[in-house]
Structure formats: structure tokens, C-alpha cells
């Protein structure tokens, strides 16, 4: 069939006329169009009638391309034979309505013997392809932009294992620059410990299998380990793997936090579990959540028996304690800050233990989710406390007994002594004349001794009375106390020719005047009794030492040796005294006791041969 078709005639023409997607224009070397096929009509907008006879340069060649076009015309003129190809290339030509049309143009020349050369321009319309390419580029740019702006690390690895692309986050996290990455294999940036695992993943992907989310450790350029978590897949083209793509998230910080959290959780667990005190955690309804070993041990219940049960219905508290605890718990949940509550726990074996329960609410936001309760066994403490109280009471009673004893004994001792003295008097009155000098002397000695004994008993009584009766503070002028003491010692002062003077101002003080008079009386009478001068000189005064008043009683007596300073304040110690001036030896002990009862102290200064000064302090109170 084919041999019969005449390719030189209509067939050839029709073929040229309807070639799909290829525009053919025929023109002479002067540029005048003589041929214009259908596709030319479509892509340039001119019909064949409109185009034929016109200069091609004017029809579709933009100014910028004109020199090129002229070159083609020149080449055509010089063409030696048909089929000579002229420069081909991408051009942008002009449509009838002015818009530009991208084409790939090929020029060829046909020479007919004797005739002028005919030029043909064969254009392939590129506008669709260009559009597609533009879309592709744009989408690629968008994609890259997206990739570079995500915080996750993105990488694309070729089948040989080398990187073909990594995003900005990848570079920043691992510290490489773009160029060096492209020279690396993916194993170069993976921690040696992970090589095997990563190769497995890579091979799986290459074989078309799916890979689950995985974790791996990369090495940054500076050697830091970076822990990444991510997914990877493989891109196939025509059934063959082209590249793997992976997206990772840096979880180094999260891992660190997880580790520290785990460590802290473990620490807490150990603390909780091995605590020396029983600890439990209950939810807001009072149901057991956590129980430590010690709680199990102390109560005798097993964890399994308690878990899930409610502390208020479990029966491990006495009724009183349960009510107390329930109230405490409610207050705690209402947000009150509570210290502790004493509860009595009933062990599984029925025995009871007294605990001090400290509770700490565990909050989630504003809500109290659970309560941690720490129990401290206070049975021993309670017992010690009770024992101490008992001791104190017993001691108090003993002291009281002792005081009562000395009071009664003194009384019982004193009454017969008074009688002895009296009967000695009666004997002297009735029989004095018969007794003679010797008898009267013995009688006198008997009376003297009875009197001395009475004084001693009086002092013992006074000493115990200071303890027996508490002190009753009132505000008094200390000068009045001195006046009262002088009045009580009127006889002694007159007999001894003593000069008693008060120097400076005497303050108002807070004291028990009845017993504090005794202090002045004691000190003044001592100063007289133990004085070796013809005229005992006694000076009384007061200084202010901040929070105390310091009183002093100074004498011009013989002075006291320093080594005796301490013993002098002890009861029943006696100084040497002059004949006929007797002391009981209790005086300074009473002084010390009275002053200490007032919260003050006593001390003394003495220079032998120059006299003694006794000092005592009384706390200052804002009056």
C-alpha cells in the first residue's frame, strides 16, 4: 500500500498542515511568509490568510529576537543545499494578542533548483511544559522553605548512604555546614553504638519494609551526643529505591529530664519505702494509694490487705482517733494548714500504738489530689513525758513534805525549848538563893543555850518558809524596806552604836516586801554582829545595771577571806563571831534563796581588814 502513496503531494502537505504540537512557518529569505500551518494558527493567533504575505519578523518576532532572526535570513540566503540546519534553541516569540510564547525553534532551508531558498521555522510550543516546570520549582521551593523552618531535623540519604539533603535545623543541631554534609555518609554522624541498629533500619527501608518510630544517637560535629527520635521512609521510583528520608526530633533534653525524673522518682520511692517512720498516701476520699514497709510492719497488716481500702472504714483507728482524724482530714482538704494530730492505731493483733500524724496535701494545680501521712510513734515520748510529770509531782510532794517536816519538827523542837527556858526562869525565881553562885551560873548557861537553840530553829523555819510560800510581787519603795529592817534591828543597832546610812536614791522595785525586808535585816545584822570596830559603819545603796537594780550593804568589819566566799552562802555555815553575838549560820543562805526567788543574784566583795560589801540584784520591771 505504502509504495502507491505519493508523499510529495497532498499527503505531505496534510501531514505538515496538521502536525500536532508543531508549528511550521515557511518564509522567504526576505522574511515574507508563504506557508503557515494549523498549529502556527493556534500558538501565534494568526490565521494562514492573515499571515501569508506578511513579514514574519513583524508578525511574531519580538524586538529582542530580531537580530537572531536576521542572522537566520542571512544564513538562508547563503545556504548551499536543502536540509541545512540553522541554529536551534529556546526562544520567546510573540502571539497576535501580544503575549509571549516560549518555543523551541528549529530552522531549516529547502533549495529548489533555480529557485531561491525557502526557509522553514519549526516551533515546539513550550508554554505547557514551562508552566509545569514553574509549578514544580515553586512547590520545591515551598517544600524546602518548610523544611528549613521546621524545628525537626530532616535528612534525605541516597542509596549509597550519602546525604543528599539536610535541613537547617539538622545543620544547626549537629553543627555542620551544608557543603561538608554532602560529602558525608549517614553513618559518619551516628554514634558508633547505634551503627548496627541504623544499618538495620536503612536496609529494611531499602527493601521496601516499613520502620516504626525509632530512637538513635547522633554525634554532633563537636562530639556531643544528640539523642533523636524519628520516623523514616524510602522513596521508590520504578520499583527501585532512590533515597531514604527521615525526620527527627531532638529529645536530648527530654531524655535528660526523663532520667533525672526517674532518678528522683527512685529516690523518692526509696525514701518513702525505706523510711524509718510509717508513711501512707491516701486519695482525697481516704483510700489507700501507697503504703511503705514500715507501715506494714507497724500495723501488722499486709499491703495487699489495705490497698484500695479506705482508712476510715478499715478499722485501724480507735473510735476517738477516727473521729479526730476525719475532722483533721476534712480541714486539710478544705485547704487549712494543719500541723499534726495524735491518733491511736489499732494493730492487726489488737494492740494499740499512739502516733503523731503529720499530713501533707499533694496538689495538682489548686486541687488536693492526695494526702501523704507520716506517723511517728510517740508512745515512748508520751511515756517519758508522763514519767517526767510524775517525777515532777513526786519531787514537788517530796519538797513539800520536807518543808512541812522541817516546819513541824521546828515547832515541836521549839516549844520544849521555850519551856526549858521558862522553867529555868522559874527555878531561878523560886530557888535562886539556895542554888548559890555556881548553881545560878549553870542555870544561866542552860537559859543561854535554850535561847541559842531557839534562834537556830527560827532560822531553819524562815529558810523553809521562803520555799513553802511563793513570792507575792508588789511595787514598793526600797527605802521603806530599809526603814523597816532598821526598825526591826532597833535594839541591836542602839546596843552596838552602829551607824546605818543610805547613800543616794533608792528605787521603786517589784518584790515581795515581807520577805525582802528579811534580806536587809539579815545583811545589816550580819554587818553589825561580825563587826570588830567600836563603831560599826554600814552603808546601803543601789546602782542601776540595765535590766537589774543592784543593791549593796557595805560594812567596815574585818573582811572575809576570798576562799570562804563560796561557802558563806551555804546554809548552816557559821562565821566566827564575837562572844555574845551569835548567829544561826542560816542568814546568808536565806538571803540567797530570797534573791534567787526574785530572779536576782548575790555576790560579795571583801578586802581583809577593810570590810565587806554584799551585793544583790532585783530584776527591773517597767513600773
Amino acid at each position, binding site marked *: 500500500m505504502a509504495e502507491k502513496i505519493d508523499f510529495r503531494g497532498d499527503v505531505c502537505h496534510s501531514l505538515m498542515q496538521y502536525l500536532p504540537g508543531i508549528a511550521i512557518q515557511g518564509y522567504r529569505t526576505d522574511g515574507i511568509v508563504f506557508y503557515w500551518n494549523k498549529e502556527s494558527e493556534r500558538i501565534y493567533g494568526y490565521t494562514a490568510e492573515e499571515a501569508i504575505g506578511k513579514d514574519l519578523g513583524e508578525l511574531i518576532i519580538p524586538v529582542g529576537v530580531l537580530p537572531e532572526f536576521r542572522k537566520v535570513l542571512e544564513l538562508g540566503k547563503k545556504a548551499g543545499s536543502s536540509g541545512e540546519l540553522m541554529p536551534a534553541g529556546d526562544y520567546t516569540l510573540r502571539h497576535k494578542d501580544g503575549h509571549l510564547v516560549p518555543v523551541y525553534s528549529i530552522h531549516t532551508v529547502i533549495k529548489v533548483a533555480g529557485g531561491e531558498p525557502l526557509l522553514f521555522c519549526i516551533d515546539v510550543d513550550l508554554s505547557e511544559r514551562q508552566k509545569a516546570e514553574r509549578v514544580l520549582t515553586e512547590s520545591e521551593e515551598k517544600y524546602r522553605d518548610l523544611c528549613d523552618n521546621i524545628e525537626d531535623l530532616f535528612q534525605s540519604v541516597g542509596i549509597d548512604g550519602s546525604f543528599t539533603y539536610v535541613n537547617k535545623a539538622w545543620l544547626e543541631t549537629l553543627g555542620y555546614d551544608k557543603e561538608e554534609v554532602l560529602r558525608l555518609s549517614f553513618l559518619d554522624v551516628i554514634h558508633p553504638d547505634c551503627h548496627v541498629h541504623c544499618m538495620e533500619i536503612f536496609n529494611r527501608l531499602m527493601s521496601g519494609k516499613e520502620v516504626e518510630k525509632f530512637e538513635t544517637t547522633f554525634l554532633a560535629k563537636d562530639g556531643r551526643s544528640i539523642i533523636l527520635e524519628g520516623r523514616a521512609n524510602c522513596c521508590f521510583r520504578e520499583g527501585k529505591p532512590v533515597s531514604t528520608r527521615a525526620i527527627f526530633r531532638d529529645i536530648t533534653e527530654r531524655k535528660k529530664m526523663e532520667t533525672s525524673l526517674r532518678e528522683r522518682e527512685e529516690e523518692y520511692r526509696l525514701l518513702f519505702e525505706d523510711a524509718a517512720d510509717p508513711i501512707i498516701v491516701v486519695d482525697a476520699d481516704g483510700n489507700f494509694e501507697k503504703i511503705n514497709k514500715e507501715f506494714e510492719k507497724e500495723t501488722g497488716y499486709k499491703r495487699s490487705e489495705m490497698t484500695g481500702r479506705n482508712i476510715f472504714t478499715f478499722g485501724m483507728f480507735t473510735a476517738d482517733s477516727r473521729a479526730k482524724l476525719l475532722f483533721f482530714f476534712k480541714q486539710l482538704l478544705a485547704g487549712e494548714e494543719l500541723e499534726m494530730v495524735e491518733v491511736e492505731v489499732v494493730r492487726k493483733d489488737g494492740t494499740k500504738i499512739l502516733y503523731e500524724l503529720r499530713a501533707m496535701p499533694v496538689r495538682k494545680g489548686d486541687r488536693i489530689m492526695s494526702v501523704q501521712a507520716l506517723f511517728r510513734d510517740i508512745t515512748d515520748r508520751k511515756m517519758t513525758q508522763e514519767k517526767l510529770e510524775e517525777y515532777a509531782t513526786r519531787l514537788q510532794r517530796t519538797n513539800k513534805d520536807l518543808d512541812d517536816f522541817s516546819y513541824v519538827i521546828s515547832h515541836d523542837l521549839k516549844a520544849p525549848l521555850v519551856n526549858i527556858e521558862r522553867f529555868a526562869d522559874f527555878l531561878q525565881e523560886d530557888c535562886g538563893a539556895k542554888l548559890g553562885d555556881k548553881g545560878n551560873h549553870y542555870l544561866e548557861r542552860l537559859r543561854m543555850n*535554850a535561847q541559842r537553840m531557839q534562834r537556830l530553829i527560827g532560822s531553819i523555819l524562815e529558810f523553809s518558809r521562803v520555799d513553802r510560800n511563793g513570792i507575792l510581787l508588789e511595787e514598793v519603795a526600797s527605802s521603806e524596806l530599809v526603814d523597816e529592817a532598821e526598825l526591826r534591828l532597833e535594839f541591836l543597832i542602839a546596843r552596838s552604836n552602829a551607824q546605818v546610812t543610805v547613800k543616794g536614791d533608792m528605787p521603786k522595785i517589784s518584790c515581795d516586801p515581807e520577805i525582802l525586808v528579811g534580806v536587809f535585816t539579815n545583811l545589816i545584822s550580819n554587818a553589825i554582829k561580825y563587826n570588830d570596830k567600836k563603831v560599826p559603819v554600814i552603808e546601803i545603796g543601789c546602782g542601776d545595771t540595765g535590766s537589774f537594780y543592784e543593791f549593796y550593804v557595805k560594812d567596815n568589819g574585818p573582811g572575809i577571806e576570798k576562799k570562804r566566799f563560796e561557802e558563806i552562802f551555804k546554809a548552816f555555815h557559821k562565821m566566827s563571831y564575837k562572844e555574845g553575838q551569835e548567829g544561826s549560820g542560816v542568814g546568808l543562805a536565806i538571803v540567797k534563796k530570797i534573791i534567787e526567788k526574785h530572779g536576782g543574784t548575790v555576790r560579795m566583795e571583801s578586802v581583809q581588814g577593810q570590810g565587806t560589801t554584799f551585793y544583790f540584784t532585783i530584776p527591773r520591771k517597767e513600773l
Partner: protein
Amino acid sequence: MAKYKILVVDDDEDTLSAYERILRNADYKVFTARDGISAFREIRNVSPDVIIMDIIMPGMDGLTAITKVKNIAEENSIPIIVCTTVGSKDDEIAALNLGAAGYCRKTAGMDDLLQKIRKVLGA
């Protein structure tokens, strides 16, 4: 003029005999009782002009006895002088508050007591 009658209440026999001697020497008629109960009997029997009362006694102590005496209408006008061996300021205040006419310490000579007796008798 009839002698003043003085009732001495004290648990100690020797003390009572000392009182008797001294008070008789001072020209008083002396009656004695060794405890609170017998004291009441004597009060009824002799209607003393003055009562001298010890504080510390077995059976009924002096302060209780004073209270009782003062609560009986016929006898509450009899002056009571408290005389004690080891009396404290507190005892003195308590006795005076209960209506005692005087308070003194027992001494061998009893000068203080004799003075107080004269005072309450207005002599």
C-alpha cells in the same frame, strides 16, 4: 473586885503549867484545856473573860476553834488571843481575820502576852 478568868488552850502540859504560874502571878484566875473539844466545855462552864489559844493542836486546830467560838452567839464576844510557837505573818493575818483580838509568839517571859491581855481587858 473579882479576878478575870482566863482560859488557856494548849496541847502541851508543861506549857500550860508555865501559863498557869505566870498568869496566876499576874493575878488572873486560870483555867486550862488541852484541845478544842475540852476548850468548848470550859468556855460553857466558866465563861472566861479572855481565851488564849495555840494554833497547832491535835484534834481541832486553833484557827478552826476560833471560827467555832465566833459562830456561837453567846460566846462570840469573848476576846481570843492567839499565842503560837512558830506563827508566821500569814497565820497572824488569818487569825485576826477570823476575829482574834490579838496575836503573839510564845517566849519564855510572856511579857508580850501579858501586855496584850491587859489591853483586851481594858485594864
